[in-house]
């Protein structure tokens, strides 16, 4: 349930809801219900985000500030097609190298 991909999916879904509410609030800044939902989801997101970055490494470069090594550059990048299962081991596998792939 708390695999990397599942957790990322939860963050993605929460973020999308937040984006929708953000846009709605931009043109309805005094809608209290929307604001309440935004606040609630922002809290959820905060928790999920912390959980993810502690376990699987940074989603933003600054998230890596507490680590001894620079995890930010590690594969996979969003356009890489990798089996998420390979990374289920968490931080131990964050250094997994996928080097020397040459395009074409």
């Amino acid at each position, binding site marked *: 349930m708390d695999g990397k991909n599942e957790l990322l999916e939860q963050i993605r879904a929460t973020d999308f809801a937040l984006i929708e509410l953000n846009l709605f609030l931009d043109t309805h800044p005094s809608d209290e219900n929307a604001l309440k939902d935004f606040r609630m989801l922002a809290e959820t997101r905060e928790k999920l985000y912390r959980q993810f970055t502690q376990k699987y490494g940074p989603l933003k470069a600054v998230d890596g500030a507490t680590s001894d090594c620079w995890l930010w550059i590690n594969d996979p*990048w969003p356009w890489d097609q990798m089996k998420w299962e390979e990374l289920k081991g968490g931080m131990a596998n964050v250094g997994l190298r996928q080097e020397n792939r040459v395009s074409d």
Partner: protein
Amino acid sequence: MWVYDKKTEYPINIKKPDPRMAKLILTQYGGPNGELAASLRYLSQRYAMPNKESKAILTDIGTEELAHFEMIGTMISQLVKDVPPKELERMGFGSIYAIHGKGVYPSDSNGVPFTAAYIESMSDPITNLNEDMAAEQKARSTYEFLINMADDPDVIEPLRFLREREVVHYQRFGEALRIVQEAMRRKKMYYKPNNPAGLAVNPNPDIKDIVEKLNMANPVNPNPVSPLNIHNIPGPILPDTKQDNKKKQ
């Protein structure tokens, strides 16, 4: 994906409008060596990058260029703020005003609209990184030309900051190029493409000579010739270094 921070990367507060300077700076908004071109170039080239260092540097510099795009847009908007049209015209901004009013539109200083023809994005990472290094130098020169024509410190300071960033980016791209070349050389030297077992093959003295000559002919380049250059030469693959041999066994 991206998230927006409600601040400019470097503070911009231009107290004295200057439509003449606004028109000149416009080229760094949507001109050939401008910030929009830079950002789109790096963010598009990322997909061709073969290793994590180069993927990261193109993503991060491409992102910073978007922040510079915002800085330039902020400068232009402040430089024409509250200036009456007649004054804009007198200061040389009339041809831009006639088309866009005071709207900040991605064009060069002559009003020529932005075009993706300013950039390239190829499947060859070496080609891309060389273009990127050239692009940073061209942008640095452009900022120097702009600084030469500016007289207000409120304008000069952000331009100087942006010029400095071009120098740093150039440096980082140079390092990325070296990293990519080394990674590719390692790969190309050990493996025969049609040898699925990836067994080391006998060095071909002819090719070795060619490569050594090429490297000698280009002594300023700390990076030996790209293995891509010899990629299509049939037959055995290049000899590898002692260190590489050890690693292989």
